[in-house]
């Protein structure tokens, strides 16, 4: 990889300052960033490690909201987010055990890989992405492939998940990367049902609103029977055609609804 200056701030304030410099890039778990840099596809002047910031780590629950520090690893979420079992289960399915010991929720959301697991949970839960500058609603946060509402130098500090009544995530894995070929997170809360799909669309994670309406009326797999998903706009690649992914969206959503019970 290209050389860069490595910076490891001890506080969020220091991190914000370091991120304010030209060519600075935040490093969290590094599970995607470092392989990308090995390919020399990315050339930051400095990498600002967020791994030393205790204030960005940890899982807590208060008033029906689960808050996860941005630098909390997937393994920690899997272990400690018991108050939101579907989310804990999702975290336990990301990558593999070693990836889960390094990769973080903040890193995953900042990257917004179209096949990553977390974006579906954030979007389906109607979670709030908290940064050093503001709070961003999930519906405003995701803006297409690898694109988010984050401004230059902005750092995610936490994610706040309202805990739904029922929820489940089901992932149908791409066999090589083990990312989601299609993953669906279904959440049923006081405000209704939200269904978020990852891995399938060329625009990244999205809400399947027809399914949400059908499931709000009847939260059962059979409620989706009459729906179809358009292949248009779905990803077509080595691992599946757009038609196949469109088909999977429905199959996996049904399974997620069944799993949510």
């Amino acid at each position, binding site marked *: 990889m290209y050389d860069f200056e490595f910076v490891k701030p001890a506080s969020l304030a220091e991190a914000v300052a370091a991120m304010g410099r030209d060519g600075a890039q935040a490093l969290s778990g590094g599970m995607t960033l470092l392989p990308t840099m090995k390919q020399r596809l990315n050339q930051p002047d400095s990498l600002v490690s967020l791994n030393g910031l205790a204030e960005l780590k940890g899982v807590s629950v208060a008033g029906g909201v689960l808050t996860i520090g941005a630098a909390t690893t997937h393994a920690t979420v899997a272990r400690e987010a018991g108050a939101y079992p579907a989310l804990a289960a999702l975290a336990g399915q990301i990558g593999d055990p070693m990836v889960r010991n390094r990769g973080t929720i903040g890193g995953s959301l900042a990257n917004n890989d179209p096949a990553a697991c977390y974006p579906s949970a954030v979007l389906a839960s109607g979670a709030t992405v908290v940064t050093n500058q503001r709070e961003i609603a999930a519906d405003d946060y995701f803006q297409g492939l690898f694109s988010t509402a984050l401004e230059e130098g902005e750092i995610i500090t936490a994610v706040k998940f309202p805990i739904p009544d029922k929820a489940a995530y089901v992932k*149908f894995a791409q066999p*090589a990367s083990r990312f989601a070929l299609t993953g669906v997170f279904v959440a049923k809360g006081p405000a209704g049902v939200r269904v978020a799909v990852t891995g399938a669309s060329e625009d990244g994670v999205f809400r399947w609103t027809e399914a949400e309406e059908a499931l709000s009326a009847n939260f059962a797999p059979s409620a989706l029977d009459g729906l179809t998903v358009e292949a248009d706009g779905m990803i077509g*690649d080595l691992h599946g055609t757009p038609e196949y992914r469109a*088909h999977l969206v429905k*199959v996996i959503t049904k399974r997620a609804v069944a799993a949510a019970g």
Partner: protein
Amino acid sequence: MPKDGGIGASTKRREDVRFLTGNGRYTDDINLRGQLHAHFLRSEVAHGRIRGLDTAAAAAMPGVVRIFTGADFAAIGGLPCGWQVTDRFGQPMQEPKHPVLADGKVRHVGDPIAVVVAETLEQARDAAEAIVVDIEELPAVIDMKAALAPDAPKVHEDLTSNLCYDWGFVEENREAVAEAFRKADHVVSLDLVNNRLVANPMEPRVAVGDYDPWNDMSTLYTTSQNPHVIRLLMGAFVLGIPEHRLRVVAPDVGGGFGSKIFHYAEEAFCTFAARALKRPVKWTSTRSEAFITDAHGRDHVTRIELALDKDHNFTALRTETLANMGAYLSTFSSSVPTWLHGTLMAGNYSTPLIYVNVKAVFTNTVPVDAYRGAGRPEATFQLERLIDKAARQLGVDPIELRRKNFIQPDQFPYQTPVAVVYDTGNYQATMDKLLQVADYSGLEARVAEAKKRGKLRGFGIIHYIEACGIAPSNLVGQLGARAGLYESATVRVNATGSISVFTGSHSHGQGHETTFAQVVAEMIGIDAGQVEIVHGDTQNTPMGMGTYGSRSLAVGGSALVKATNKIINKAKKIAAHLLEASEDDIELKDGKFSVAGTDKSVDWAGVTLAAYVPHNYPLESMEPGLEETAFYDPSNFTYPSGAYGCEVEVDPDTGKVEVVSFAAADDFGNIVNPMIVEGQVHGGLAQGIGQALLENCVYDENGQLLSGSFMDYAMPRADDVPFYRVDHSCNTPCTHNPLGVKGCGEAGAIGSPPAVVNAVIDALHRGGYTHVSHIDMPVSPARVWAAMHTK
């Protein structure tokens, strides 16, 4: 019951201790004083003409020692192909030059254009980015059919076309086979693809070149399955360094599966550059680089047809195959779709007439060469898929159709219509055993149980044969091989009785250090711990052809037996002298020489000491010392065979296939270490299951590799496979090598792909999807789902 440590014992591997404690010594672990690092600038386009190459700015960058381009290699030979195939018209194949660095043209993504040698790897990479390459991109040929079109762009302008050869086998049978098809009561045909694969041993390739001006000696440390072959090819054909000035060392090697047989440009480069710069030069492949430089495997497109009479006897078989060679001829590439494939098309069956046609095609892709099984998996896949289809088409049991057409146990030795003579086998027995191991009688109950869970369960069966123990040199010489395929061993007995064995075979996972010691220990009757196996260094091992084609024990082990027998014969003479008895009366048992019918004896160490301290020794008639070398050239191939059964469950909603059980009943002849043999089968099965369900090397129409990393090339993982049930009790020993062994390294990868696909088709038919007659590999969820819903 074999005694611990001898032939037949599941002796634990001695090499494991170093690997388990981090003390293995792989090529990348070698760092020499003053070592420089090489970074290859590679083509990003599949086909192009290099109009200009400006290295001036790069050469001035920090740490850069020198930049090499194709011009530096203008006077140097190309990488040679080791097998000249003669086409059906009697003409030699078209054989293009394969330069070490591109000579004005690039022919696949990854083709090396220039190399930066610098003090550090990152400096070399930085400088490589500063090289200005002006490439005129040319239309690429990727699809084999398109490559054979009359107006197709040519990969090599100096050839008449992209056709390497049009091979017919047995050409004289062509018309008779056609006649048999005209007379057939039934004809079954199948079009299929044998998917392109990447071998992906877990250790990427590495080369470290070194040069010692004091004695004008070049040394190459390399990740090779056959250091002597590399020395011969690189020394004699590429760099012009005589063997006695060239040492090739392959230390611990992290798997090969064929991909480390071949002589690669990076090996020649590092050796050349170290000589030019008088400093060691190291290159370590990244995995991404491996995907675009290691020779790929398989990539056949085939139409196969079977003729049957009214009683369902096979009367003739005909195949037409397009075989991808990639952009250049890799070391053994030309032999794979021909002699390693056509000669196995009889399978286990007594089909009297066979005609195989293979057109080998140049394309703008990475060269394709041998990968675990090499030609034999392609043969087995076609044949066993076709027989399954035939059984369905004729409405008969696929097991019975196979049994009916098997070469029967009393027909051995059996001359096939495709040149080879099978020495032994008992296919009815392996089939019987397989059905038992697979619990075939319980199948229907399992299918019914799966149905309750919403899964489609099915069973696929195959029987395979392979030709291993490669190979009789005089035969392969007639067929176009440019090398002999014997093997060698030197057995050096030390004064106190310990033994150092120097073998031309190379272990990169096969466990030779353990098994070869078992053989010697058993023959002499000493503890295996007294025997050390040395391999991998041309400086101290006799010329050997290395390890591939399941040949190490069958050929290398036979050389070892020959050399050990010479040792025993001489030791008996020494013992006879010491015991003042006739040599004919000396018996060797449990490491002790005794005179028959007496209590006079001398132990092994007593004899070996006498050989090296020859105070009481028949010096007038015998040399002192106890060291012997033997070369063994096999008189025939060996023919392992076996029956495999795979059980799958298909999720009808997603098309996802799960292998729920896999059973194998193999006939490997005699077995030295059952534990290691089973391990070889397990590994082969996983690779075959990987080919059948997961692995796919795919180019787009412009020649860009779409599956260029583990993110898109699906390697089998622990949760993709089940525990395997493996049996090797049905043994018919090989009749023509001293150990009676047949080889076991490739069987799993040969037999499993058709077993898996047959099982998927069976599951779909049982589930009512009877219109599905074939799905090409990898049988991915998307493909299964599409097949289910496409009539």
